[in-house]
């Protein structure tokens, strides 16, 4: 996919893989917390 954006890459809106990984990690931890506290 050709990159038509002036930020990120053709495959990601984030400027680096590390940033994308970090956001994924934060999302996963948030989901885990929600599941842990809401599902009995």
């Amino acid at each position: 996919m050709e990159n038509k954006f002036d930020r990120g890459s053709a495959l990601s809106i984030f400027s680096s893989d590390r940033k994308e990984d970090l956001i994924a990690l934060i999302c996963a931890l948030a989901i885990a917390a929600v599941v842990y506290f809401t599902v009995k």
Partner: protein
Amino acid sequence: MVYTKKNPALFIIGLIMLAIWWGADSGILGGFVDHLNNVASPGKTKYSYMDEMSSIPMYFGIVAIVFGLWQLVGSHKEGSFDYFSSSVAGAMFILVIAMLVRWFIAPEIQAISIGMGKVGETGSYIHKLLGLNYVVIGIVVGMIIVNVFSVPEWAQNGVRLSRLGLKTGVILLGTLYSLAELKNLGQLSVVLIGIFVLGSVGMVLWIGARRNIPNSMGGVLSAGMGVCGVSATVAAAPVVQAKSVEIAYTIGTILIWGVGCMFIFPIIGQLLGMSYVQFGAWAGTGILNSAQVAGAALAFQPDGIETLKVAEIFNITRVLFLPIIVLWLAVWYVKREGGTQVVGVGQVVISKFPLFVIGFILMFALSSTGIFAPAQHYKGKYFDNSNVKAEKMLKSEDVATLSAEIDKIQRNDQKEALSRLIQNGKVSSVDDDVLLRGVVNGKMLSKDATNILKNAHKSVWHTAKKVKKFRQWITWLFAFGLVGLGMQITIGAMKQAGGQPAVIGGIVGFVKAFLSLVVVMMFVSEKI
């Protein structure tokens, strides 16, 4: 550059989501559900998405409508907020398609497949054997959209969020496994799988380099051929900068190779007179997709599940090697792309090792502590016969039915397991459960007796609610990511990739199947 487009599409997507929710909540979709149930299993209710449909589209529909109105009437200025908030439209576009795939398209395809009946002795339906689930269908639908209609401009920024969804899904995959379960694996299975996983990865990389395929293609194909299926492919892809088309090719190669193996493996197994354990070890090593491993094992031993159990153990073991493979590929890729530059392993680990794989290990560690489910769980299921409710214990009429039929069973170990069940009123151990499932699969007893055994099995196996919820999240994140991935695969990109991945996958798959057969025949005895 202002990314937010003044377009009513997001608002309309919100309305579609609310319409789905309303249809499910008001019962209007009942006709469609009845149609699916009648085709798939007359008289039974199998459609299990009504709960999801009664909540998920409502929440996201409201978000889409609010954002859609704001995008339409608000004023937008260049900046980070505009850049990131503009991705909501594309994300919702992918999500609504994922909803249609999961709730309508995939179940319809499955209903048609079930209507066509089971394939030979595999005991499976064609959609299972071909892996026609939301994963494959999602990619195909995404590909159709981009190649036939093209991704609308307002959605393009959001389509680039698909990889984030896949990475989050891989991290959460760690919650499905636990150390206690993996500790039960036989040492031989770990050694055997380790050799073949690492060997396959090495072989794909070696052949790929000789056939001049891009490093990114070789890297992602090696993970798919070495470890197994979609998760490994997705986990390895960012490390080797794999393109969407390369990920799709890898998944396609794995599935096509698995279909062939599923039919050929049982024939060879029978010709060579392999034992259940030998065949289970071979299928679990040589075939990549979990459903196809199960299909081959059941085709080899339709009247018991010993083969299936061994094959599953070998299949599970592969996941242990995922972090090792990702680390290997990270170092390999940096070295290959870096040319003559000398690169240290430590340097690569610090700069390149993906945080999301560390996240996977972290979730695996958390899961092993038992905070989501009893520590011995595997994919949220665990055996516990300590507090079976009184109404779930065998009743006197059940005992009478089973006692009258016990002599129909030929194998002594299965007979003894049934005796213990009759004596205790519940399944005594995991081993007994395996033996009794073999009796059920073998259709040795009457329908009534078989149903009693099925209920006895259900009463001692439990599903952890938290892990069940995690599975639901993982499914959605993967569905979201793979529809978006499909939207990045153009016909031009497929032509560019050519047929090399399938050729290399075929060579490596054949060598792996042959060598694992030799090793299994030489070293695997009846007991592991």
